């Protein structure tokens, strides 16, 4: 039964679309993340580019059918490079009234809404605050509403009678997925393949899920529906092998790659925190590659164990999010003072304090730059797409080891949990990593003797003959590393540490501009906002607007050409998901430019629509200024 479904459609009305945005929303136990992931994997195999973003509540299983418990998964598939999960959806799947209520504002006018009509009853309306039945009161008139009795159809589609209704309800996501598979002209065979792997050890669950998938597909194909279906043509992707990857997994893999390439074993000391935990869990999966993952008793022990491991010769990493990053501040100072390599990954979330743990924000930038006691410079960089977390994690590790300094890598919840297609590189094509290791029994070794070119000291591992030395948080003399409170020495050491970090600018790429070298408006951004901003800029450039985009991944130090780039445009606007932190930093590092700013602090990404509106408004006033 499970394998029998119709591949020929009676109703072949197919509309071709360049891109399509789907959001699946249900209770946090409804399996929306699984259904969304399966859909995305299938789309990828069928050749679409894509970008996904899960939107889930902090509570693991909030009360049923309440607004607080709604879990969502959004994916945009396209025939061209997709940079973000999309502003508004073409299709919303709402598994209950609460999911509809929370997500209706994200549906395009005229978009499709599929609801599980079985869940729309007075009790449910009361629980989520609907005064009347939204399916009947005309409030959805501007959308294409498709009422599907998902719950009852799922129960009717079970392959055997000995399955409880409760167990059946857990597979409602498969009925919906079958329906969407039909709607988007995907193939069920590919979905079966993925399901088969997922449930390889649970054949009875596989049987149930397959039956229900087919039922959903066939239901969509039934004559009563007469649906218009959609097809997104294959994307023209660069030749190569691809996979779908989240930012957190890409971060872990980038670090593993750096460990392998540098020959330094990886040590990760971390404490679980949303939304950074997946980097640690991913690392723990890869012990076979020699990665030692230490789940510490707290955030401080996480970073301190990493510092100990760094002193001992490991590529040392600690991963966290905002509140944990605050706790690590003092220890980052120790790593700066001891001039040891250390990668600190902060998967930012909305703050302050506990804030909104599952929502994204870019508000830890100033803390990363300046949130420590004393003059305490550390490298700050930021990844900007889920896939490039791999490359920036790799680069963070490279800079950290080669320059003997802590590097703070900022990502965010949106990048960490979001996914996109990743073109798999060969590790041998990545740049070499050459840590400045001290040679055994080198009579000239001194703990704070430096390479005159980049001011980097050597790395001497315990156990190596002839290099015994002590490091610590107290100020030391240059070269010899003896504890010292000498006034002149302190000032010199402060300046050396600052210069050492600033000199990293010599070895990072120059800042690129999307667009012309000069123009009316330069949009400046950093970190996780690249996708939506770039999409907006491309649209405007296609419309002939004289607009450019400089997206920063290197923040401290800034690329050497930054001042020049910013000065070549009539107006500069800095867009951030915070109250204006990068702009504050640019004003101090590169004064003399009139920076405009656009800030959003809603735990949400930028929308392309709102960006275009804002930029157009500025371009209008620029014209008036003339």
């Amino acid at each position, binding site marked *: 039964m499970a394998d029998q479904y119709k591949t020929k459609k009676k109703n072949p009305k197919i509309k071709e679309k360049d891109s399509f945005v789907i959001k699946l929303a249900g209770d946090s136990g409804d399996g929306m993340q699984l259904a969304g992931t399966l859909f995305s994997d299938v789309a990828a*195999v069928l050749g679409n580019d894509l970008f996904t973003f899960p939107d889930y509540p902090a509570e693991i299983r909030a009360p049923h059918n309440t607004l607080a418990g709604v879990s969502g998964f959004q994916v945009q598939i396209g025939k061209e490079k997709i940079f973000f999960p999309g502003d508004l959806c073409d299709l919303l799947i709402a598994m209950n009234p609460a999911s509809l209520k929370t997500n209706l504002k994200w549906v395009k006018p005229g978009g499709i809404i599929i609801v599980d009509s079985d869940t729309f009853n007075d009790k449910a309306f009361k629980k989520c605050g609907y005064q009347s039945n939204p399916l009947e009161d005309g409030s959805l008139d501007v959308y294409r509403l498709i009422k599907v009795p998902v719950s009852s159809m799922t129960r009717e589609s079970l392959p055997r009678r000995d399955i409880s209704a409760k167990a059946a309800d857990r597979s409602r996501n498969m009925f919906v997925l079958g329906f969407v598979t039909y709607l988007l002209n995907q193939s069920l065979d590919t979905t079966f393949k993925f399901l088969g792997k997922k449930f390889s050890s649970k054949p009875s669950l596989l049987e149930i899920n397959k039956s229900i998938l087919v039922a959903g597909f066939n239901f969509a194909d039934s004559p009563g529906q007469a649906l218009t279906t959609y097809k997104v043509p294959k994307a023209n992707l660069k030749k190569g092998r691809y996979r*779908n990857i989240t930012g957190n997994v890409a971060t872990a893999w980038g670090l593993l790659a750096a460990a392998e390439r540098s020959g330094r074993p990886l*040590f990760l000391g971390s404490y679980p925190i949303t939304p950074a935990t997946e980097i640690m869990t991913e690392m723990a999966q*890869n012990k076979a590659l020699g990665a030692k993952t230490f789940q510490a008793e707290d955030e401080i022990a996480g970073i301190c*164990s990493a510092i*100990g491991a760094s002193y001992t010769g490991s590529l040392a990493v600690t991963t966290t999010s905002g509140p944990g990053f605050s706790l690590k501040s003092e220890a980052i100072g120790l790593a700066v003072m001891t001039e040891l390599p250390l990668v600190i990954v902060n998967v930012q979330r909305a703050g302050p304090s506990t804030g909104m743990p599952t929502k994204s924000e870019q508000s830890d930038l100033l803390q990363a730059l300046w949130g420590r006691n004393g003059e305490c410079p550390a490298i700050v960089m930021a990844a900007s797409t889920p896939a490039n977390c791999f490359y920036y994690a790799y680069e963070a590790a490279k800079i950290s080891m080669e320059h003997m300094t802590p590097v703070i890598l900022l990502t965010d919840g949106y990048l960490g949990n979001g996914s996109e297609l990743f073109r798999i590189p060969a590790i041998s094509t990545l740049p070499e990593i050459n840590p400045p290791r001290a040679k055994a029994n080198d009579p000239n070794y001194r703990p704070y003797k430096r390479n005159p070119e980049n001011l980097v000291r050597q790395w001497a591992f315990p156990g190596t003959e002839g290099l015994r030395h002590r490091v610590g948080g107290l100020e030391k003399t240059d070269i010899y590393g003896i504890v010292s409170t000498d006034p002149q020495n302190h000032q010199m050491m402060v300046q050396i540490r600052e210069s050492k970090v600033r000199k990293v600018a010599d070895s990072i790429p120059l800042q690129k501009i999307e667009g012309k070298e000069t123009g009316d408006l330069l949009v400046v951004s950093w970190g996780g906002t690249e996708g939506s901003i770039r999409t907006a800029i491309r649209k405007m450039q296609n419309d002939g607007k004289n607009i450019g985009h400089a997206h920063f991944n290197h923040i401290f130090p800034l690329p050497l050409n930054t001042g020049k780039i910013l000065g070549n445009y009539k107006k500069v606007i800095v867009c951030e998901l915070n109250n204006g932190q990068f702009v504050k930093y640019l004003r101090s590092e590169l004064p003399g430019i009139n920076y405009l700013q656009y800030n959003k602090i809603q735990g949400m990404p930028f929308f392309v629509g709102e960006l275009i509106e804002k930029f157009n408004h500025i371009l209008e006033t620029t014209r008036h200024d003339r």
Partner: protein
Amino acid sequence: MIDNRILQSETALNKEDFTNDQMVKWCPGCGSHGVLKAVENVFPQIGYKKENFVFVSGIGCSSRFPYYVNTYGIHGIHGRAMAIATGVKLSNPGLSVWIATGDGDSMAIGGNHFIHIIRRNLDVNILLFNNQIYGLTKGQYSPTTPIGSITRTSPHGTIEHPFVTAGLVLGAQGTFFARVLDSNIKMMTGVMSEAAGHDGTAVVEILQNCIIYADKTHAPITDKETKDDYQLHLKHGEPMLYGKNKEKGIQLKGTKLQGVVVGLNGVELEDILIHDQYEKNPGIHRMLGKMGPPDLPVALGVIRSAEFETYDDMVEIQLESVRELSKIKCVDELLNSGETFDIE
């Protein structure tokens, strides 16, 4: 088992191999000087290559220790020595890792790391200088300051119940606990040697005198007139006898330890408890650890030295077994594992 991984020195070492040219800046008369002497005595005896010793510390008078001994060393931040040392040992299990910490560093600001390193039974040696006071910040009470003590921050007497270090260590499932006096270098040397030989977290509590801020804080135990009645020197396999002529002994009566006089009230030598430091059940060790004046002597020497698996061993064993089973041997294979697809 782990010690096999720490390389032995090919040549005989002596004290000078571990002394360096740094000026020792502890107060004259400070108990830390004795500890430094004991370490300089015991490191050559242990016999590891001198490059394989690492000293890690936090903050406080005692935490300056790494600067005064010629080994690899990290002087860390307040309370975090145990966490830093964890990274050192896990990163290279072939190192002999020593931690210098004080009562404030380990049991106040670093209390969390202290109990967790012990719980994991990481193979490190902790020298805990307990002078019952904050010395470097000039005389505030610590988590071990006796209740009622007048200090800078308790001008009317402390109203906090102090930790008994042994209670905390054994409560955290400690596998090795010893207590020594800073004035007894011979005892310290012997105990440190046993600590080094123990696989697992070895805590050596040093009852230390702070001549400036808490002079004679351990007085009833250390005073000439009273010390015989208040010091019980434990030796494995021997009866727990004390007193000027070893006429007194420790007896288990019901669920309590009692001090008795051998030959009095029908007490015979065989009624006296025999010390078994290797017993896995910590019951008697806990009682011994918490015992003290005015009714009973303080137990000195190795109270507990029980064999359990160490964390660092288990890390290595697990890593090895996972490596053998895994099909993925390098990052290229990881990147190409699972769901991938080719674009032509």
